[in-house]
């Protein structure tokens, strides 16, 4: 259990560093929250002098020494109090994030796992059938597709499948005029809306898994225990899965954890294109509106999610690989 404890210690330390980084970033930024809100108003016409005062009074500008602010911030973060959003004043940031998080978690989480499983399977297949079209097709396709920018894939899908063909809804996570609820009809609706964004993430992230798995798998196929397993007359499927793939997947698991960060970033662009109400879009909104409390909370949440995912992968690795236990 020492292994797990060190991991947890490291997790907490990283968390602290991320939180602190997050505290510092907006304080390096020019312009006060009121300026930001004012700039937003000014886009719709001139702002009277009184307005600025009113806005400042509304938002409440932070006071006290840096250190006091830091302590207060740590306390707030610990109690999930991220302050009030500027853009959605007076909504508390925590509520906004809580509303957006499930969408991203489900979309990105599920799709990433699907992509990982699917990509890994294709990679195993490609390595096992090396030299055949089952190898060439996913390898070449994967190389190419993984070079697509997320948002570009999203735009093309949106245009061709959403508008020209009209097969899929083009924006949102559920139909206009419906309220999220737990019902079969809503679930279906949500799935229907998730198809295009999900496909985008799938297309762009699948290639990496295929290529990664294929190359580790080819390496393990050359390992002696695979040859020995064959020499002992094990069924080819057993050899491929329990011996070669089972071992090849381990290094890929680590990259899975790390790649999550990339996928979360990619989903931000995808969410933007599809107006998907997840944390990515919210972060975009926060950025374009200079909504620092929201931005901070979102960045923190995203970092923590990736951290946690990595932590879980680490632990999983320990379980799957007896070599790291002990």
């Amino acid at each position, binding site marked *: 259990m020492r292994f797990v404890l060190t991991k947890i210690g490291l997790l907490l330390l990283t968390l602290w560093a991320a939180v602190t980084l997050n505290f510092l970033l907006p304080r390096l930024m020019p312009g006060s929250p009121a300026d930001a809100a004012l700039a937003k108003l000014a886009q719709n016409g001139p702002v009277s002098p009184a307005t600025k005062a009113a806005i400042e009074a509304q938002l409440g500008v932070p006071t006290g020494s840096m250190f006091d602010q830091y302590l207060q911030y740590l306390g707030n973060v610990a109690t999930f109090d991220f302050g009030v959003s500027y853009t959605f004043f007076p909504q508390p940031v925590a509520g906004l994030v809580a509303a957006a998080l499930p969408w991203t978690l489900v979309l990105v989480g599920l799709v990433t796992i699907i992509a990982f499983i699917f990509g890994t399977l294709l990679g195993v297949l490609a390595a096992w059938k090396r030299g055949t079209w089952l190898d060439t097709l996913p390898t070449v396709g994967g190389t190419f597709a993984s070079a697509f920018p997320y948002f570009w894939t999203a735009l093309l899908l949106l245009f061709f499948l959403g508008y*020209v063909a009209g097969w899929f809804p083009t924006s949102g996570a559920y139909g206009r005029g419906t309220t999220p609820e737990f019902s079969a009809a809503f679930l279906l609706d949500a799935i229907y809306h998730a198809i295009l964004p999900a496909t985008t993430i799938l297309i762009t992230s699948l290639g990496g898994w295929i290529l990664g798995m294929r190359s580790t798998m080819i390496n393990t196929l050359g390992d002696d225990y695979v040859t020995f397993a064959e020499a002992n007359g094990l069924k080819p499927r057993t050899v491929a899965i329990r011996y070669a793939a089972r071992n090849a997947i381990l290094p890929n698991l680590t990259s899975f954890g790390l790649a999550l960060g990339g996928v979360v970033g990619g989903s931000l662009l995808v969410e933007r294109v599809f107006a998907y109400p997840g944390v990515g879009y919210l972060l975009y909104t926060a950025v374009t509106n200079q909504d620092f409390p929201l931005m901070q909370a979102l960045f923190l949440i995203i970092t923590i999610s990736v951290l946690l995912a990595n932590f879980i992968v680490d632990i999983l690795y320990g379980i799957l690989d007896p070599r790291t236990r002990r």
Partner: protein
Amino acid sequence: IDVDSKSDNTGTEGSMLVAADNGSPTFEKNFNPFSTSKRVTATYMYEPLQVVNTLDGKSTPFLATGSEQVDAKTLIYTIREGVTWSDGTDFTPADVLFTFNLMKEVPGLDNKGVWQHIESLEVVDNTVVFHLLAEDVPAASIIDQQLIVPEHIWADVEDPLTFTNEDPIATGPYVLGDFTPNQYKLAKNQDYWQADKVAVEELILPAANSQLDVVNNGYDWAYAFITDVEGTWVNANQEHNDYWFPPGGTIALVPNLTKAPYNDVNFREGLSLALDREKIADDAEQGYVDAAGQSGLLLPNQEAWLSDDLPDGGEIAQDTDAALAAFEEAGYTMDGDKLVDASGTQLAINIMTANGYTDWLQGLQTVQTQLGAIGIEVTLSQPQPAAYQQSLGNGDFDMAMTGFGGTGSVFQDMNLLLNSEFATPIGTTTTGNFGRFSDPQTDALLADLKASTDEAEQKTIAAQLQQTVYEELPVISMFYGGLWGLYSDENYTGWPTEEDPYAPPNTYNSTPLLILTNLEKAN
């Protein structure tokens, strides 16, 4: 590739699809009319005393039946009778009194700064009398526009600043219908005091209104800048789709008058003469707006105020020779293809704009090219909007792109542009006159204009102010920023147009009330 336009009106018969409110990407429920982040349509439900048409400054009575400027310091509003709140309670002058006093109590609510004009107010019979702080005729238009809230609800609100007012009780033509995070509806208020004028039974407001949506999904009304409006919006429904882009403000370059060489009027004149405003307007807004004159007025909206003494109605044509002559006066001469100062260094100008304001940016790129052509090196800086706003307010810039005017009131426009009251020292924040123009004579003119109740006199003063803007160049006007109204007369007719500019076509603020009470069902 051609995309078929399809009418995808999800509402029932008599409803109207409006692209007015964009969720980011979903809606938060906030109908607090004082909040800066309220749902846009709060202004369709809460009414002001009078709606000011920002195009010409004319007021239309709403909760007041009229106002009277007794003298330059006293203003009397007669409050409309027979109006009820949407919960059935009667609307009374007390509500008006309450609303204004609430803002005095909680200054954070006073977005328009009414209490900078009012000394006190009182209810007399069915009127509300405003006693102003000074002789202040233009104050009327500010008081006019204040949205009135019901006392019986708001008196109990603990913190009106953070109150999200999820169940709005108002007097306006619409009440809140179904609300979901990505679409909500406004239903017609059947008890509305001028219900007979309201033709649209239901407004549908989706959260996502991408331009693809607007063009393809059969919207009735949208406010959006759209590329190639003829080829897209109009083309989607040739018969019914139409647009009107009246000017809504003047986009200008503000030189920082506290800095050399920007404080040299010859220098500013050189810049002004070097620019081809037609081309800039064309590049920035794709030909939908006109180049701006140098009168300081928003034309043609304020045509009536335009001084006859300005040559060409204030318009300044590009004249490179004259520009160079002006620069020579300012101490800059042409050396090869560079404009250099006495020491031989090339004239370099930095112009600030806000990141993300793409139309301005495109206009500025043309400015860059045009000034480059006479040997001036122009760099652009694009801080994020908040930082831009801060620099602008603090006077931390060389030249900045910004907008002015468009309040509908000539006094307001000129005051914000020229009053030295706003010319705070560099480093302190101001909200107008960012270039720090300061001239006692102009200040005196503005004070006179503020106190004048005589229209002829007002015009005379305004003409003098225009002369100042024209000669002193505190800003270098470039083009009129447009109001991007798109509408379809397939279901409803009676939209404001150039011929009948009874209201600006925007979907925000109170002017939509004018439109919503003017539309009629298309046969």
